[in-house]
């Protein structure tokens, strides 16, 4: 060991560990961490409430009865035929209500009743079962014409219909359903990955603001490489995220098991479930580090928490765009758009997880993970360099040249604390 390594600053990894250890324990033992763990419960509760209320609203909103106005026996026959048909076909058969039992020769103005907009009537059947007459808005005519014909056929005394019992025999899957199922697994995996990364990667936006606000950043910069500060912060948040996911995953799996649900309801992914989960974890890590390193850089340029909060929305929208891009690629396997999604670093984890669901090959994942790792290293290096250059200086800054690209974002966050020393 030479002199420099003995007395020089800590190695990159050791320094990153010192920072990560501090951040990890600070977050884990903070009171706010319990809210972090409970966080996913809130959207679930909102989702359940929304779906319950929505379902009730939908049920009441779309209840549409078909009224019957015929002579007494015909009304009974129509209602009986409707119920018989509904028992075989189900909710596709609209509810049918008795409007009026007509005396022989009595007429009924169905159009006037419908235009009166009373009750929940969507259509009215008059005439006889042998010669039914349907009155309804144009859209409903096309929709129910066939159904009313079937009911009328069942009610007709001339030739009563009989519906034979159908014996059913189920098979596990078919070629078409296997492909469709894998696509579903791919999309579900992508969605889960997106939700987790969106929830967690955005948290690093404000990660360096504490150090800048507390002026600790100068102590860190004097002692250890700035790359190590970035890496330490990213890996601490990654560890916190993994901790959270482990808790949520265990809770979710327990709930699914209690509810009698299992993975067998999903189609087997191409690489098999164990490897799919392993790759999912790896791609989560990579996706998190890739997006996180960019967010950390952007956040590090922001002088105040308020600026970070302002940046949260465009950052989230960027993630959504990346997700849409990767989602589109799933439907275009083998085309250039899929390869573009795989090569573009930010969408690569999403695209590759989908590929793991759709395809058996493993070697592309080795390549992709290597590529993503290189990109993470580059992003951290560039981010730390920008931070050193733009923030860790003591002289006043002013915009001297036309900003371009990332420099434009950087220029938005000129460090307000800069002043001549």
């Amino acid at each position, binding site marked *: *060991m030479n002199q420099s390594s*003995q007395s020089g600053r*800590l190695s990159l990894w050791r320094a990153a560990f010192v920072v990560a250890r501090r951040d990890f324990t600070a977050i884990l033992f903070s009171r706010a961490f319990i809210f972090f763990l409970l966080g996913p419960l809130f959207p679930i509760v909102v989702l359940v409430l929304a779906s319950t209320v929505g379902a009730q609203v939908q049920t009441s909103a779309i209840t549409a009865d078909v009224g019957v106005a015929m002579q007494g026996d015909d009304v009974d026959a129509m209602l009986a035929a409707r119920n018989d048909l509904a028992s075989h076909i189900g909710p596709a058969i609209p509810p049918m209500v008795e409007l009026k039992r007509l005396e022989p020769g009595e007429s009924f103005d169905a159009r006037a009743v419908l235009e009166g907009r009373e009750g929940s009537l969507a259509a009215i059947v008059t005439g006889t079962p042998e010669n039914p007459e349907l009155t309804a808005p144009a859209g409903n005519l096309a929709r129910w014409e066939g159904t009313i014909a079937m009911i009328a056929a069942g009610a007709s005394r001339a030739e009563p219909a009989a519906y034979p019992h159908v014996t059913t025999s189920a098979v596990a899957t078919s070629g078409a359903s296997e492909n469709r199922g894998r696509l579903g697994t791919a999309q579900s995996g992508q969605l889960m990955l997106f939700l987790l990364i969106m929830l967690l990667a955005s948290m690093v936006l404000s990660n360096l603001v504490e*150090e800048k606000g507390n002026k600790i950043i100068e102590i*860190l910069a004097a002692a250890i490489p700035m790359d190590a500060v970035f890496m330490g912060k990213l890996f601490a948040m990654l560890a916190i995220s993994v901790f959270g996911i482990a808790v949520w995953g265990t809770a979710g799996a327990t709930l699914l098991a209690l509810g009698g649900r299992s993975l067998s309801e999903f189609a087997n992914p191409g690489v098999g479930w164990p490897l799919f989960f392993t790759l999912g974890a790896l791609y989560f890590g990579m996706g998190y580090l890739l997006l996180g390193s960019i967010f950390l850089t952007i956040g590090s340029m922001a002088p105040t928490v308020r600026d970070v909060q302002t940046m949260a929305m465009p950052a989230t929208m960027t993630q959504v765009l990346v997700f849409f891009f990767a989602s589109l690629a799933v439907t275009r396997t083998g085309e250039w758009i899929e390869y573009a999604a795989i090569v573009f670093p930010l969408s690569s984890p999403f695209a590759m997880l989908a590929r793991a669901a759709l395809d058996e090959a493993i070697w592309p994942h080795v390549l992709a993970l290597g590529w993503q790792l290189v990109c993470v290293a580059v992003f951290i290096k560039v981010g730390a360099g920008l931070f050193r250059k733009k923030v860790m200086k003591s002289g006043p800054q*002013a915009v001297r040249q036309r900003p371009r690209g990332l420099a434009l974002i950087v220029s938005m966050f000129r460090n307000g604390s800069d002043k001549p020393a």
Partner: protein
Amino acid sequence: MLGLYREQMDNATSDTTGLAIEVRGLVKRFDDTLAVDGVDLSVKRGSIYGILGPNGAGKTTTLRMILGIIDPDAGMRRVLGHKDPQDVARLIGYLPEERGLYPAMKAYEAIAFMGALRGLPLAEGRRRGRELLENHDLGHAADRQIRQLSKGMAQIVQLLGTLVHDPELVILDEPFSGLDAINQGKLEVLIRSLADKGTTVIFSTHVIAHAERLCEGIAIIAGGKVPFAGRVDDARDRIPAQVRLETSASEGPWKAALPQETRRVGQFWYFPLPETGIEPLLRALIDGNAGIQSLSIERAGLHDAFVAIAGEAAAADLVTRPLSEVA
């Protein structure tokens, strides 16, 4: 692990110059502002060295370049015998001008964390943290969070964090600001004790009294330049001693013997001590019947020297710099 750490520290540096810091022609420009313009410094090992300058003179930027936080645009720096300050980062303790600690950390943990950044094992840092706090009358605050401490106490905690890893070189940026008079006195004692142990201490300040009491050497920075670097006495000598004369006669031929720069304040006459000494002047005053009531020679203080040197440099800077750099 601790044994290895100590061994590494003992074997870490050796240079033959006897200088802890040697800086030549450091230049740093921020966009179109020239913050540091050719700074030269030489700081002896084991000495206490002051960097004096008005606000915005370039003190902090110079210190940041010495520490390797930022790189100079031009010039050479050698810290503890190494060209790259990062090669000796574990031997340096640094207290920045703008203090900062994690508010939720306990005091002894904060000290241990700062030690860990300089390679000190965490457990040893915690032990030393408690010990340092005890030794500085803050043992009762060891388990309190930083946010629960007063500003002065937090500042002492950060200072102890700067020293926890037994650095060879301690750089303190405006260490006295924010401290009350009692703690300023304690800090002076601490700085002297560090130097007694052989630690090199460099601190920046714009309060001259601290430098006058503590420093063997000083550098005055003004407008990014160093118009003076050397011993405190040499700085004082830049300004000639002042003679204060009180006479019973207000007029007479003796007045012709007074130097041209003489000014009168009340019943006293003030003028610089002539280069020929006081005796010829004294004889002329007696021969001219001045009626000498009192005569004393007052040596210039560092404050006067600083004001004169920094003022001259600032004035020269205004004349020579392009307007864009002065603004």
